[in-house]
């Protein structure tokens, strides 16, 4: 199935912008977004369905009937119609990419930002609020926290907002310390000077 590579994302962005504009006008942008995510998840899990959408061996008319049967009534009419257009253009392979770009675009328009938080233990509620405030202060956007517990960190936390990563974990500090010790040892070996002490 289609990977989320550059070309796919570039084309998918055009479709998703169109769908998003229409959905916003009808006031159902969030619902459409959730439906799209659901669909993308299903495609990712179900290879046969992915092949059905992506294969050029299957006639567009057949696919049109199938989409009508599966989705009409269950999701908004707007989304079904949009998918029919995508189908007519033989672009059903783009569905996961459309879902992803739709999500990104909607997130940006709502002034929200994904924040990935890694902690050694479950994030305490008080800290979570503090973190939210800090992110709002830092980015001016509403955070959507994606939390993950990783005992390897030992302490502290790692926060990633977009490309910016803030690593205040004990694990990385220990690593820095061990590198500093190694560096010093190798320099002393090269210079041939033993540790002078205090």
């Amino acid at each position, binding site marked *: 199935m289609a990977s989320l*590579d*550059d070309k796919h*994302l*570039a084309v998918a962005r055009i479709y998703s912008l169109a769908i998003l504009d229409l959905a916003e006008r009808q006031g159902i942008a969030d619902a459409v977004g959730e439906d799209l995510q659901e669909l993308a998840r299903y495609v990712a899990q179900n290879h046969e369905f992915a092949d059905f959408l992506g294969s050029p061996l299957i006639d567009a008319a057949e696919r049109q009937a199938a989409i009508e049967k599966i989705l009409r009534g269950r999701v908004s009419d707007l989304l079904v119609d949009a998918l029919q257009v995508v189908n007519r253009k033989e672009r059903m392979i783009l569905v996961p990419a459309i879902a992803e770009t739709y999500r990104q675009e909607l997130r940006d328009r709502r002034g929200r930002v994904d924040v990935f938080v890694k902690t050694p233990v479950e994030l305490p509620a008080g800290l979570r609020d503090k973190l939210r405030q800090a992110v709002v202060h830092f980015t001016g956007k509403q955070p959507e926290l994606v939390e993950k517990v990783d005992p390897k960190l030992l302490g502290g936390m790692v926060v*990633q907002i*977009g*490309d*910016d*990563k*803030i*690593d*205040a974990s004990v694990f*990385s*500090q220990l690593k*820095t*310390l061990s590198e*500093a*010790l190694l560096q*010093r040892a*190798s*320099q002393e*070996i*090269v210079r041939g000077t033993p*540790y002078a*002490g*205090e």
Partner: protein
Amino acid sequence: MRFKVDEITSVITEEIRQFRSTVDLAQVGKVLEVGDGIARIYGLSNAMAGEQVTFANGAAGQVFNLEENSVGVVILGDYLGIREGDEVRRTGELLSVPCGPALIGRVVDPLGRPLDGKGVIETPHRRPLEWKAPGIAERQPVTEPLLTGIKAIDSMIPIGRGQRELIIGDRKTGKTAIAIDTILNQKGGDVICVYVAIGQKESTVAGLVERLRSAGALDYTIVISAGSSDPSPLQYIAPYSGAAMAEYFLYSEGKATLCVYDDLSKQAQSYRQLSLLLRRPPGREAYPGDVFYLHSRLLERSVKMRDEYAVVPKDTAADSRERKGAVKHPQSLAAPEDVRPDDAFGLYHRPHGKKKAEAFLASLPDQDKYRVHRFPDSGGSMTALPVIETLEGEVSAYIPTNVISITDGQIYLEPDLFFAGVRPAVNVGISVSRVGGNAQRKAMKKISGSLRLDLAAFRDLEAFAQLGTELDPATQRQLDRGLRMVELLKQPQYQPYPFTDEVLSIFTGTGGFLDDLPANQVAKFELALLKHFRDEHPEIVKELADKGELPDALADRIRQVIRDFKPHWQGKAQ
């Protein structure tokens, strides 16, 4: 050996006490796909073209392609240890290499990491890999010679400091030998040499380093090696890295440098490899469209920088680099021609600038308080000897024609000559030096004036004479002379000649003193004669070396010595 536990503990305690915990802030991306030295990264949305990035396994990378949703990165190191989903960090800096005096005598990879097992290179200096070449105003014409110690080259295809002279030829024709001889010949001089080995066998490079070491040439040489087993990105950056290391001495210390890029055809091939892997469109011979720029931007960095003079207060330090201390002419750029400074800072440029500065000093009322100062970091040079390997003598292939058109001349080596025993196998007919003539010392210029044309004429005659026709005496004489000059210009590898030996030797040949000797005796006679000059007439050798000129009086004395020596030698030989 016994370890003292206390001591080790105290070292570690100390280190921990001094450790300040800091929050690590970085911009990161994720590896989407990786292979063949190339990675595509998701994220890194603020990355610059040419920026250095770091992979999770410690390998460095350079940002090459900025695409809509991803970044194409070339990996300068072990790409087998990088996996999909690994983190990649921005460094916020363009790719740079360590440089400075600490690198001299070392063998390093293109990122400046030691390969010789002599430990960490500690130097505070770094320079960016890519550096824009100086413009017209900062340059000065090439006028000083860079002697290769090879008779055939110094006499007929002279190389000047700041020149770019291509060494081109098929495989196994002695291209590297010329470059190495040139490096060996800089011994005792003021030139810093950088030898860049690109895509060569490690064993070859090891042998070469050993040769340089045993000749004492590593004392002023840096060797950079990107072997044929290194990833192609490393081979691609190697010459830029060599140029950056030389530029330190050129710009910060005003020294003369020599860079050998051995060879640029392999570098072009590795650039082709990574360009194709990055899906850049292929052009002629499948090289990417910017393969000309690849070499032109490298070779443009070869330069002879202008000398800078200024009138400064007498107590200024001799090694002062402070341009602000210069005494400015009150009329500045509107001053009369003979004292007019060359820029608004009151500096005088290039050799004629020295005279103007002196004239300005003389015009000052309190001139004994000032002196003319030459800035020690001005006037440096970088001479480049790029090497190109041709296939079956095909100089009209893509890369050879490109580099021929970029350089200031080429030394063309021919397999036919090589196997006929003419070594160095220089084809003097199609080898040229476009700027070196101005850089020749007077003595050499005087004796070698018509040598190149004579030898080319001899090659034509030789072909004609093989037809077995009867020849008139004049033609026969020309043939005899040519034959002996060819013998005289043969020279064994790793034996660069000092300037004086070169002059005396060629003077003997062009003066016709060899014409009556059997051709196979020429080399022996030359050696004996040069020894005779050194032992019995050191004053002539000294005069020649000091002045670099050959006035008629000195030429007559040399002629007389040769005339006296010849019967003596012939008597001994029989």
